């Protein structure tokens, strides 16, 4: 793959990419699989209905809302949510008679078999999944219901197979966790603190919990599962870092407040890592970083005009060995409404040219992906 290695200042001066429409290949093919509301949009153009809507709920898209099985992707674990009462988001709780402790909703994880269409409950009162060779890890609430003015706390369970019971990997440590992915046999997860600040945890076995990074979020796990790329704000600043998972040692750092990385301002979770390249949402649009042992640098910036994606892009996927990136963008609603639909963009990294999809008017939109590494080789 040929990428233009550019200094930060000249990369900032690149002409903004002008998206063309379509974004889809032959016969409705899509670059990746998406979840749009209550429909699975597959790469080959199929639209598979779900029994329940895909909703991030208490985790948003801190971890993937739809996780395909690691072997052949025929099965999908996806997050859903059931409202236990109507909640008007424009009103305060007190203005609509919601008292402390009132049950407001219940998260769940569902299992879809794409071949048969069977869609059933996998875990109730649970959300976030890591699915890899060591098994299926997920977060289960101590109380299945989310209640007003109560933190949703629980434990991380790991089951060796879909049909087996889960064993707690956070015994005697109930907290607010989000499971992210497997890095080899180590589980990567978040602990959610006050202010939505996240700690990145490495859990090697039941009860063996290490903190890899404080006040940070995981961009991606390396292809061999030995490292994670993170966005770290632990010292009050903004840094991209690569951390060795088994040792916890920081192996590379790029200060996003300094000249070399300043224009990026931040990176976000839901990125991807292929070969030496790491892609993430950043302030100008999509950032592609290059990691070599001991060094992390900005390789390319794919600008996404604010007019096209006023709220930025999310869940950036590297394809074609790093030559293409795909991401989805929410569209603003009217007035104080948060959502007016979605689109996705499909960009070639080198020329920085993007095509965009037609708009989707679903309530939710997410990329289906499995961040656990190493990934199983597809035959």
């Amino acid at each position, binding site marked *: 793959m040929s990428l233009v290695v550019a200094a930060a200042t000249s990369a900032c001066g690149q002409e903004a990419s002008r998206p063309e429409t379509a974004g889809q290949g032959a016969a409705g093919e899509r670059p990746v699989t998406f979840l749009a509301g209550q429909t699975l949009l597959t790469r080959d153009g199929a639209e598979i209905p779900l029994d329940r809507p895909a909703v991030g709920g208490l985790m948003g898209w801190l971890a993937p809302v739809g996780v395909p099985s690691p072997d052949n992707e025929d099965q999908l674990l996806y997050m859903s949510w059931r409202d236990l009462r109507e909640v008007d988001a424009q009103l305060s709780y007190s203005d609509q008679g919601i008292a402390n402790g009132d049950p407001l909703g219940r998260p769940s994880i569902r299992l879809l078999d794409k071949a048969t269409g069977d869609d059933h409950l996998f875990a109730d009162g649970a959300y976030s999944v890591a699915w890899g060779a060591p098994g299926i890890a997920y977060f289960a609430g101590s109380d299945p219901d989310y209640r007003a*003015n109560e933190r949703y706390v629980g434990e991380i369970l790991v089951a060796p197979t879909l049909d087996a019971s889960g064993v707690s990997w956070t015994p005697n440590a109930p907290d607010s966790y989000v499971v992210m992915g497997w890095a080899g046999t180590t589980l990567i997860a978040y602990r959610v603190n006050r202010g939505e600040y996240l700690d990145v945890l490495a859990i090697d076995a039941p009860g063996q919990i290490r903190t890899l990074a404080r006040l940070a979020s995981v961009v991606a796990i390396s292809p061999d599962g030995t490292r994670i790329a993170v966005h770290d704000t632990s010292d009050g600043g903004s840094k991209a870092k690569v951390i060795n998972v088994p040792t916890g040692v920081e192996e590379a750092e790029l200060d996003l407040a300094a000249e070399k990385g300043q224009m990026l301002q931040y990176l976000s979770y839901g990125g991807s890592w292929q070969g030496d390249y790491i892609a993430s949402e950043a302030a100008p649009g999509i950032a592609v970083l290059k990691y070599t042992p001991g060094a992390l640098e900005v390789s390319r910036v794919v600008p996404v005009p604010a007019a096209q994606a006023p709220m930025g892009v999310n869940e950036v996927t590297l394809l074609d060995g790093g030559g293409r990136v795909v991401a989805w963008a929410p569209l603003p609603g009217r007035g104080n409404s948060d959502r007016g639909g979605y689109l996705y963009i499909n960009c070639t990294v080198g020329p920085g040219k993007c095509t965009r999809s037609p708009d989707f008017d679903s309530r939710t939109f997410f990329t289906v992906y499995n961040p656990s590494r190493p990934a199983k080789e597809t035959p």
Partner: protein
Amino acid sequence: MTNNRARLLWPSRLTLTTLFMAVTVTVPAPPASASRDCGYLDFTRINNTNSDLKVKAYDTLGVCVTSTWRAGSGTTTDPCQKNYGWLPAGWYDLWGHWNDYNGSAIWGRVWYVQDKQCGDGTWRTELFVHSEETPNRTQDCTSNSDDPQCWDKTASCSSCNEGTNDYYSNGCIKVKRQSPEGSWDGHLDPLHDTWHNLVSSNHGSFSRGSSLHVHN
């Protein structure tokens, strides 16, 4: 016999309908009552580092007066993006206020507000109004460009004023305070004083309805 078994196996449509309704009833929202006209924090979303935070409060003459300060929220403008987006629009109850909060990333004078669901169903949680100071309301500033318990002089952009980078947050509303790193006016002191003098003198965990309004 066959007919009786048939009735057991195949209930009437009316019975089915009744059963379906009994199983799927959810608690409806009661009619909404009016939120406050005065006596609350009001946050107007403009951009992540330069938005308006007001205290609307009755003065000693019973007139609702407004005091306005610059404030920030989030790192992106997507209110559904946990850990990055600015706060979702709407009214929030206040769940507590402390002068000496000692958290893992938030300290000192803070206001704790209710969780809020965004348009895609994502819940924003653990939300506060706060600044950057120590639990005992002082500053811990070093030569680093960004200290978590210091309102740093770092600018949010190359052409921006000093002391603006700290307006960025994970979503919380942030207010500037005086700091040894600059000679700017602090806003946290007057905000805090106005709140206590004119709105509420409560500290600790408590519930106060409709105390923050976030909007464009």
